[in-house]
C-alpha cells in the first residue's frame, strides 16, 4: 500500500539531534525561502507552517493509525470559526488571542470525539465515506447558521489581537528590526507571526515524535500492522483509533484557529471537501507515516502553487498530476523515499541485508 511507515527498527536518531536540527531548520527556513530560486516570502512561510500543523495531524490518522479520512476539513474549519467567534463575540478582551486558540482547539476536539466515536467502527472505503458524510453535515450546519457564522461570507475582520502574557505583550504583526542580509532579504521581513508559528510547529513536531515513539504509538503501530493479532493479545483497537482520531482532529483545529487569526477571517472554504483533499495531497506527497513528511509536502505544494498560479491557470491540473505521479512512482512520498534509502544504506553497511 502507500505504507511508508518505517518499522520501529528504522527510527534511529537521538532526541537532542532532532530538537536541534528542527529548531535550526525552522529558524533558517524563512531566509532560505527568500533566495531567488525559491522566491518565497515571509507570509507564505508562515502559512506553510500553520497549514502544515493540520497536515501533520491528518498524517497521525493516515500514517500511524492507518485510516484515510476525507473529512478532516471539518476540524480545521471548526477551529477557524471557533477562534474567530471567540475573538469577535465570546471571549474578546485582554487575553483574546490565547482564548481563541484554546477555544478553537476545544471545539475541534469535541467534534472529533463525537464523529470519531461513530466512525472508528468502520474500515477502508466505508470509513472514508462516513468521514465525508459528517464533514458535509458540519459544512451544512455552519453554512446555514447565518446568524452565527455569516454563511457564505464567513467571518471577517478578526483583528489579530496581541499575545498577552501579563508581563509582556507581543503584537504578532510587528516585524523584527531591520538588518540587511544580502540575498536572504532583510531581517525586517520576518514578522513575529512567523516566530510564533515556528514555536508552535516545533512543539507540534516534538509532540508527534514523542507520541509515535511512546507506548501509545507502539500499540498503534501494532494495530495498523495486524489488527486481528492485536485484538487477540488483548488490545482494544477501537479506543486506540478513536484516540488517534481525536488527537488528529485537535491538531487540525489548532491549525484552523491559527489560520483564522492569521488571515483575520474565517471562510466557508475551510470546510469543503477540497480542503480535506488538500491535506491528503500534502501528506501523500511529503510522505505518509513520517514526521516531517506532511510539513515538507505542505511546503512543496504551497510553494509550487504560489509560483505556478501566477503564471498559468493550470495549477490544479499540475497538482493532480504531481499527486498521481507520487502515488504511482514514489508511494512513500518525498521524505519516505529518502528515509527508506537511508535505512537500506545503513542496513547494507551493517551487513544486515
Amino acid at each position: 500500500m502507500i505504507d511508508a511507515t518505517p518499522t520501529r527498527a528504522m527510527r534511529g536518531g537521538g532526541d537532542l539531534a532532532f530538537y536541534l536540527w528542527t529548531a535550526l531548520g525552522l529558524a533558517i527556513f524563512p531566509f532560505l525561502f527568500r533566495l531567488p530560486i525559491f522566491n518565497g516570502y515571509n507570509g507564505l512561510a508562515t502559512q506553510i507552517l500553520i497549514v502544515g500543523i493540520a497536515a501533520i495531524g491528518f498524517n497521525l490518522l493516515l500514517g500511524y493509525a492507518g485510516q484515510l479520512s476525507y473529512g478532516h476539513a471539518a476540524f480545521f474549519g471548526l477551529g477557524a470559526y471557533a477562534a474567530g467567534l471567540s475573538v469577535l463575540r465570546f471571549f474578546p478582551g485582554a487575553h483574546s488571542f490565547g482564548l481563541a486558540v484554546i477555544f478553537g482547539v476545544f471545539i475541534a476536539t469535541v467534534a472529533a470525539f463525537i464523529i470519531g466515536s461513530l466512525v472508528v467502527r468502520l474500515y477502508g472505503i466505508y470509513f472514508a465515506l462516513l468521514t465525508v458524510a459528517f464533514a458535509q453535515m458540519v459544512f451544512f450546519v455552519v453554512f446555514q447558521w447565518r446568524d452565527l457564522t455569516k454563511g457564505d461570507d464567513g467571518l471577517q475582520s478578526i483583528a489579530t489581537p496581541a499575545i498577552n502574557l501579563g508581563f509582556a505583550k507581543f503584537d504578532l504583526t510587528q516585524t523584527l528590526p531591520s538588518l540587511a542580509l544580502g540575498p536572504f532579504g532583510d531581517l525586517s521581513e520576518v514578522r513575529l507571526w512567523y516566530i510564533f508559528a515556528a514555536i508552535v510547529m516545533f512543539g507540534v513536531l516534538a509532540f508527534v515524535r514523542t507520541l509515535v515513539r511512546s507506548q501509545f504509538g507502539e500499540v498503534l503501530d501494532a494495530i495498523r500492522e495486524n489488527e486481528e493479532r492485536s485484538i487477540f493479545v488483548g488490545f482494544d483497537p477501537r479506543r486506540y483509533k478513536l484516540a488517534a482520531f481525536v488527537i488528529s482532529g485537535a491538531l487540525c483545529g489548532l491549525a484552523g484557529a491559527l489560520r483564522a487569526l492569521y488571515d483575520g477571517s474565517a471562510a466557508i472554504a475551510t470546510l469543503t471537501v477540497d480542503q480535506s483533499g488538500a491535506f491528503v495531497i500534502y501528506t501523500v506527497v511529503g510522505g505518509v507515516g513520517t514526521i516531517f513528511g506532511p510539513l515538507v509536502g505542505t511546503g512543496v505544494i504551497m510553494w509550487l502553487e504560489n509560483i505556478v498560479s501566477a503564471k498559468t491557470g493550470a495549477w490544479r491540473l499540475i497538482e493532480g498530476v504531481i499527486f498521481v505521479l507520487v502515488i504511482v512512482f514514489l508511494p512513500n512520498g518525498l521524505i519516505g523515499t529518502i528515509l527508506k534509502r537511508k535505512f537500506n544504506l545503513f542496513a547494507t553497511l551493517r551487513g544486515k541485508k
Partner: protein
Amino acid sequence: MSETILETKGLGKRFGHFAANADIDFVVRAGELRAVIGPNGAGKTTFFNLLSGITLPSDGTITYKGRDITSAGGPARVRLGIAKAFQTANIYPDQTVAQNVRLAALARVQGSFALQVFRRSGRLGKVDEIAERALDRVELAALIHTRAGDLSHGDKKRLDIAIALATEPDILLLDEPVAGMSIDESRRTELLIKKLAAEMTVLIIEHDMEMIMGISDSITVLHQGKVLASGTPTAIRASKVVQDAYLGGHSEAEIGG
C-alpha cells in the same frame, strides 16, 4: 480432582442455514490436556473461534471459571486468561521476534488501552520479563532480532505460541500446532506442548493422531458440528462410532495407531 475451568452448554453457530456447530456440551477441568479431533469440516476451528471470541455463538453459553463469557469480546477473553495460537501463524511480520512477543506482554501489563503518549514502553520492566520468559519456553531466544516475516514456517508457529504465552494465560488454545512441520519440528513442539500442559490447561486441535494419542489426557471428537464422543484416548481409539465417522475421511490405521 480439579475443578472445571471451561464449560459450554448447547453451544451452536449457524452461518445462514449451515450449522457449523450445534448442541455442543463441553467440559474441561483445570490442568487437562484436551484434544479436539474430527474429520475435516467437523467444525473444530469454528468451535475454537467461539471459545476465543473470534465469533459469537448463535446458541448456547460459554462459562469460564464460573463466569459467563458468552458475549465477551476477544480482548476481554484474553485478559481473563484465554489465549489462542492460530492455525496459520498470526504474527507481526515486519517486527522482530522480540518485539512480537513484547507487544503481547505489553498488553498484559498495561491493559486493553492506555493513553501513554509520552512514556516509552521500555520503562515497564515487567514487560521484558514476561516476554523473555515466553521466548525461553518456546526456545526462540536465539532468533530474537530476526524479522518475524523471515522466519521458517515452524518457527513462525512457535512464535505464535510465544505470543499467546506472553499474555499469561490460564488456558491455551492451539489450532493445529504442528501442521506443516517437519518430523523434527513436530517432536520439538510436542515436547513443548507437554511442558506447557503441566502448567496450564491446554486445548488442542490436531490431525496428527499419533501425537494426540500420546499426550492427551482426554479427547473430544466432533463430527458434522456436534460432539460425537468424548473420553480417554484408549476409549476413543476403541470406539466404533468414531471409526465409522472417520472412515468417511481417514483410514482405520490412522486412528488405531
